[in-house]
């Protein structure tokens, strides 16, 4: 089983999120400081827009020749002693990872941050088979303790407040000692919490039999996988155990190291507003005789999971995504409801565009609809992915395939019928605004409209200025 899907309950999820004071506090950080840091670092780099264009070009080129670049990647990886495992489905990927872990008789595996392993539901699967995965990215570690899925693609625990994290640590680290002393009173200071997580995790790195990471990029010319982190946890995860497995997906391949440096320059700026992330680590195969450390075995598990079907369709631009998170950091809907409301691995605008393909339009039908089409996501997306257009594409399919609820479909078709017959439209309009005008008579606004309670529960409805439309007033004036 992959991660539990609750996208079909978007409305209920959103309602719950809107009533969660902790979530609201946490979201303030994303919409405020995180979004504005991106603007500042982008402004400081005059060639930022040109770099975005360059990044789009690189990705478009790769997607046109993806088979060639993946083959090249495999050749180079193999030449350096690594092994590639092609996996069409999440199940194949899980089984492959499990078999690799078993070949090492693994009991504990450490994990670096990876959205693809969320996509294939790896952690639960390993647990079911007697292997304990331990997340080493601080955010992932926190939500693992809380038994929650990530709510953001680069900050999985961004929905948690410091107080909630302190509570979790208190509950899960009862015997935590620092420098041989029992730790003092509970603290909510970020630095204290980070130190605590690090010292608890440190021991695990040495006990782990296998280290599993993701990969932000696969470099075709060298066969290297690349991870980008801020904590350095990925390096320990992949270099200490005897086996390193990088789980990634096919669209992560890029031709050269030169291309990597271009895209890295927009990635961190778009993601966290840093110029560069703290650690960019390239893995170029297992330990060689002359190396002092490194894993004995290096495997790359390459997941397709519906991606190759997107090639050559309206969805292809989504394969340019570098998972930077800028679209959600800047999305007004995400700011209101957070990531869990979207109900699957990828939240925010990228999720609204991608999830219907991955989990089915019927299940995910709310996601592309729950957008104001404000266009901010497309404005900030470093890869210039036309996210609103793709959401509209899903709305069109949902309308065509009658997945949109009947009342909504008939409503819009009835309206369109009138719009195509202006005399009918004017008649309807006259009746409607006369009624609204009457309802709002003393105040110029209406406090409650049963058919539009979605509006009037939280807002007054401004009444029309006059019972006469502009068109009819204009006609009277000019005759």
């Amino acid at each position, binding site marked *: 089983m992959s991660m539990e899907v609750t996208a079909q309950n978007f409305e209920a999820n959103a309602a719950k999120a809107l009533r969660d004071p902790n979530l609201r506090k946490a979201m303030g950080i994303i919409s405020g400081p995180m979004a504005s840091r991106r603007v500042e670092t982008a402004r400081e780099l005059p060639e930022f827009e040109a770099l975005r264009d360059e990044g789009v070009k690189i990705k478009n080129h790769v997607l046109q020749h993806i088979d060639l670049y993946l083959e090249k990647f495999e050749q180079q990886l193999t030449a350096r002693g690594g092994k590639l495992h092609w996996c069409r489905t999440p199940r194949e990927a899980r089984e492959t990872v499990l078999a690799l872990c078993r070949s090492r008789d693994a009991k504990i595996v450490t994990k670096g941050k990876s959205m693809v392993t969320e996509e294939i539901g790896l952690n639960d699967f390993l647990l079911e088979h007697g292997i304990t995965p331990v997340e080493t990215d601080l955010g992932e570690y926190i939500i693992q303790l809380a038994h929650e899925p990530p709510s953001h693609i680069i900050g999985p625990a961004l929905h948690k407040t410091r107080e909630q994290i302190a509570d979790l640590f208190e509950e899960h680290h009862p015997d935590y000692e620092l420098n041989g002393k029992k730790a003092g009173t509970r603290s909510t200071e970020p630095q204290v919490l980070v130190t605590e997580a690090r010292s608890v995790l440190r021991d695990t790195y040495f006990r782990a039999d296998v280290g599993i990471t993701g990969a932000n990029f696969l470099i075709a010319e060298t066969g290297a996988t690349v991870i980008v982190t801020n904590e350095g946890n990925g390096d320990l995860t992949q270099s200490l155990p005897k086996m390193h497995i990088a789980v990634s997906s096919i669209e992560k391949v890029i031709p050269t190291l030169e291309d990597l440096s271009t895209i890295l320059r927009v990635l961190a700026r778009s993601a966290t507003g840093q110029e560069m992330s703290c650690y960019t680590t390239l893995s170029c195969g297992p330990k060689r005789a002359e190396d002092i450390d490194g894993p004995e075995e290096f495997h790359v598990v390459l997941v397709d999971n519906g991606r190759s079907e997107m090639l050559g369709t309206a969805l292809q631009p989504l394969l340019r995504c570098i998972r930077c998170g800028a679209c959600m950091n800047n999305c007004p809907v995400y700011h209101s409801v957070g990531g869990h409301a979207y109900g699957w691995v990828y939240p925010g605008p990228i999720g609204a565009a991608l999830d219907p393909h991955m989990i089915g339009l019927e299940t995910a039908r709310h996601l592309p609809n729950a*957008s104001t089409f404000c266009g901010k996501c497309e404005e900030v997306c470093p890869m210039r992915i036309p996210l609103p257009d793709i959401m509209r594409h899903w709305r069109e399919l949902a309308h065509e395939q009658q997945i949109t609820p009947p009342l909504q479909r008939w409503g*819009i078709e009835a309206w369109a019928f009138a719009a195509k017959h202006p005399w009918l439209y004017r008649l309807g309009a006259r009746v409607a605004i006369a009624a609204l005008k009457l309802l709002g008579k003393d105040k110029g606004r209406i406090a409650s409209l049963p058919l539009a309670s979605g509006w009037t*529960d939280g*807002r*007054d409805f*401004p009444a029309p200025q006059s019972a006469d*439309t502009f*068109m009819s007033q204009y006609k009277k004036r000019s005759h």
Partner: protein
Amino acid sequence: MSSIDSKPRVALFVTCLVDLFRPSVGFATLKLLEDAGCVVSVPEAQVCCGQPAYNSGDRKDTVAIARQVIEAFEDYDYVVAPSGSCGGMIKDHYPALFAAEPDWQRRAEDLSARMFELTSFLVDVLKADPVAAKLEAKVTYHDSCSGLRELGVKAQPRALLGSVEGVELVEMQTPETCCGFGGTFCVKYGEVSTDIVTRKTADIAGTGADMLLAGDMGCLLNMAGRLKREGSSIQVRHVAEVLAGMTDMPAIGESK
């Protein structure tokens, strides 16, 4: 420019929300265009640009409505709308609707080239003289999403407001952030929409302005609805009313 007296012949695209909710914005737009030397017509065959159908995924009806609009506005030098949203629909999205019909696509592109949002038409195309209006007010301006991102409307309304005697403009912290209207979104996902507009009204109130202006009726109805529910005394108006000096009508959502 094909007319005999060489005055630009402009068709007013009223927009359905102005037609229904605030005719005074239509008259303010007429006045601004005429003051700037245009000969203005209001084609009768117009209804709506089709956006509700387009954003609901009803492509077939969208195309039918777009054909109607293209035909109704064929014979004018320019088409102007007091809205960035309808303007953006016609200018930015119409041509792509006819990818499979070259003849119609040409006509859509032709309309697209002649289509403008009101303030950008006055400033960018007509390079009109400053407006003659007066208003003692501290105002703040909300950048509507489509106008801003599809048509680049940002400096134009501010430049025009700068020429209104007595107006002081104070900026919000996030004037470019969506107000949460989103067409049918505001009813389909009413709670989320209300939450988004509540962040917006907090920002508006924080400016200390006594009037909120914008160039799109959808956003204005939404923000006015929330401000009035909050009991705010901030007046909400379409920017055209201020520029045309037509602020004697009650503000949006008010009766006096």
